[in-house]
């Protein structure tokens, strides 16, 4: 059976045989870089189309259905439109920061790709503090938004950026605490260790109710962290027209747009890794026969299936719920999510010590 890890192994062996180790590493980095960028582009196209189709079907509409078969090339056409559109910079804007902001948002999203295991033994960088790395880097994304909001010289943008600052910083807490619950159970911060620890069942099943609570808190917190509805106060089109990216147009806007979707993908991938076993197929304890059958499905399909399921759930939120108000948003975090996830972490720790989980 083919697997992605075999392909990477072949490429690495060939590079090491042909060039000296330094050049081989450089070439590997280049290949990875190209792969990440193309993955970015493809993810952007797929997720935008998916969002439009999901929203359309929930709203009893058809959605894009003109460009290509069943409208499949709609997002491609949109990209071309955005590429040829003029990227305006407002007169009073801070030009450097204004133009830098989309790239900051983009680079943060790219950095977050590093520790994600897309398939069995197919990971860019299996660093031993993977979870910590993710929560550290993802908080940098607020800087891109603050930069955009400040540099635009627009009051709506400023308000949106300030809202987003308060929001992302608060929701980091409960996202981190929920991730910590799994770290406590696994005893490791490394992404691959966490996945291998779920070989006999995913944590959401093994960890009883506290793990489910941690999962729900995690989903809510990351929805807020990625500025998705119902927590899209930074954009809030009916209040702040478009929030922090009011003044952006053309490709600079597209980069923000893309970064949002890639961020959604990444947080869902992390959620899938932590709670749903990443690329690990659906295994039940000691049922060897069943587990063996499950192994026939390639690990990359498991990973993308779980991730896209979580993305769908987040989209489902977006197209069902109204937006919260800024004070309610912070209330939800500080009065509900944070206490719940703290008590939950306590429970999970006790459970991990007493070995009550499966």
């Amino acid at each position, binding site marked *: 059976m083919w697997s992605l890890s075999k392909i990477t192994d072949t490429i690495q062996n060939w590079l090491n045989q042909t060039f000296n180790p330094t050049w081989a590493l450089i070439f590997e980095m280049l290949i990875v870089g190209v792969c990440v960028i193309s993955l970015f582009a493809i993810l952007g196209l797929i997720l935008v189309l998916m969002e439009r189709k*999901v929203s359309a*079907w*929930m*709203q*009893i*509409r*058809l959605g894009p259905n003109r460009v290509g078969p069943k409208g499949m090339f709609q997002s491609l056409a949109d990209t071309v439109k955005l590429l040829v559109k003029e990227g305006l910079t407002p007169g009073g804007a801070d030009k450097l920061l204004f133009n830098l902001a989309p790239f900051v948002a983009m680079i943060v999203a790219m950095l977050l790709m590093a520790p994600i295991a897309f398939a069995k033994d197919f990971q860019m960088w299996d660093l031993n503090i993977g979870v910590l790395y993710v929560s550290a880097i993802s908080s940098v994304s607020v800087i891109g938004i603050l930069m955009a909001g400040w540099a635009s010289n627009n009051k709506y943008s400023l308000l949106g950026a300030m809202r987003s600052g308060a929001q992302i910083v608060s929701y980091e807490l409960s996202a981190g605490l929920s991730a910590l619950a799994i770290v406590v159970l696994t005893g490791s911060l490394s992404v691959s260790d966490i996945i291998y620890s779920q070989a006999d069942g995913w944590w959401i099943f093994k960890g009883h109710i506290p793990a489910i609570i941690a999962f729900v808190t995690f989903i809510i917190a990351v929805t807020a962290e990625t500025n998705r509805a119902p927590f899209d106060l930074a954009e809030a089109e009916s209040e702040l027209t478009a929030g922090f990216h009011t003044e952006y147009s053309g490709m600079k806007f597209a980069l923000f747009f893309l970064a949002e979707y890639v961020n959604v993908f990444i947080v869902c991938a992390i959620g899938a890794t932590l709670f749903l076993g990443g690329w690990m197929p659906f295994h039940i304890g000691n049922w060897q026969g069943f587990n063996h059958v499950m192994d026939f499905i390639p690990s990359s399909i498991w990973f993308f299936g779980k991730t896209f399921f979580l993305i769908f759930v987040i989209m*489902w*939120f977006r*197209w*069902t*719920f109204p937006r919260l108000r800024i004070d309610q948003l912070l209330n939800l975090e500080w009065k*509900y999510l944070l206490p*719940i996830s703290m008590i939950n972490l306590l429970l999970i720790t006790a459970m991990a010590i007493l070995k009550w989980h499966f």
Partner: protein
Amino acid sequence: MFIVKYIKEVWGAVRSLLKGMRMTGYYFTHHKEIITQQYPDNKAILNLPERFKGEVVMPHNENNEHACTGCTACELACPNGTIKVITKFEIMPDGKKKKAIDKLVYHLELCTMCNLCIIACPTDAIKMAQTFEHSVFDRNQLTKILNNPGSKIREGVE
């Protein structure tokens, strides 16, 4: 009990959210509920009701005859100055002069489809057509002359 109240509150909130998600989830999976009409594609089956007010037209019969006597009732009834009746005098075979329309100018760009001219017309010479695609490249094309060139008033219409 504070804790019980707290948990009840959280549970009630989550339940209300799930209810909404069930609703959207239902429509997500039931595609036959989709109500979109794909407009230019469904032109063949697009039936507009006969009362639909699209634009004012003047029906002519096969002999290129209409029923307009040029009484200017429509012009007077129109609140926007949409209709302009230009009359001329035709010399009848018996030598009498008779008033008839030369042109009935209709400014579609001013028309609000209020139907007042149709009601005012004593001879039912004009009626509303069911067309609705009025966009043109030049505004002047919206000024129409309703009577066909060379048309005459139908026999017996006074």
